[in-house]
């Protein structure tokens, strides 16, 4: 069975500071990895995804993530955050062997709070 662990439930940070949101996954097979962002009262929006190839993935809004197979991690980073980045961030995994062929399995989320 696959699972996702987001290591921090809340991450407070000051504007223009760098941030890293940590995600570890568990799977016995190859997986695809995703980061989604959820703004208040809105649906989830894809930030980036890793399917194969280069382990450094760049996404929207200046975010990037690095896939590390040996550490089974997919941490999300941004070098300089803005107030508007305040939101809930979800790491997710999908792939063969999951509970459904294509369903996403999500972590519990990390609340990023950016203050001035």
């Amino acid at each position, binding site marked *: 069975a696959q699972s996702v662990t987001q290591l921090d439930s809340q991450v407070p940070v000051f504007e223009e500071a760098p941030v890293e949101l940590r995600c570890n996954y568990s799977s016995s097979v190859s997986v695809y990895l995703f980061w989604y962002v959820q703004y208040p009262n809105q649906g989830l929006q894809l930030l980036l*995804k890793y399917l194969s190839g280069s382990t450094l993935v760049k996404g929207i809004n200046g975010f990037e993530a690095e896939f590390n197979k040996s550490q089974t991690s997919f941490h999300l980073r941004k070098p300089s955050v803005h107030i508007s980045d305040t939101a809930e961030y979800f790491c997710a995994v999908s792939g063969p062997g999951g509970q*459904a062929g294509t369903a996403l399995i999500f972590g519990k*989320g990390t609340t990023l709070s950016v203050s001035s």
Partner: protein
Amino acid sequence: GAGVSQSPRYKVAKRGQDVALRCDPISGHVSLFWYQQALGQGPEFLTYFQNEAQLDKSGLPSDRFFAERPEGSVSTLKIQRTQQEDSAVYLCASSLAWGSQETQYFGPGTRLLVL
């Protein structure tokens, strides 16, 4: 273009009532998913459709939950005899094709409160 839409956005139901939640996926999207998101948690898979075929319903928590997508576009999630533990946000997502690599596009969700 239009994204995934869901209605109603908010629903308050008395315990024991039946509710129906609607999802309009992006036009032409083959795959449609329903997820349940409890307060402070990540979304959890409920069921999956490929066109009109319900290929996986392993995440439905009980036989009170029923989903359909009769014409391969709009989908309805029905909950019979609602219970307080059904209170959650119900998210619908669609993707263009079948496959784990496909990006899922999410609607804004329906927030269900069962009193």
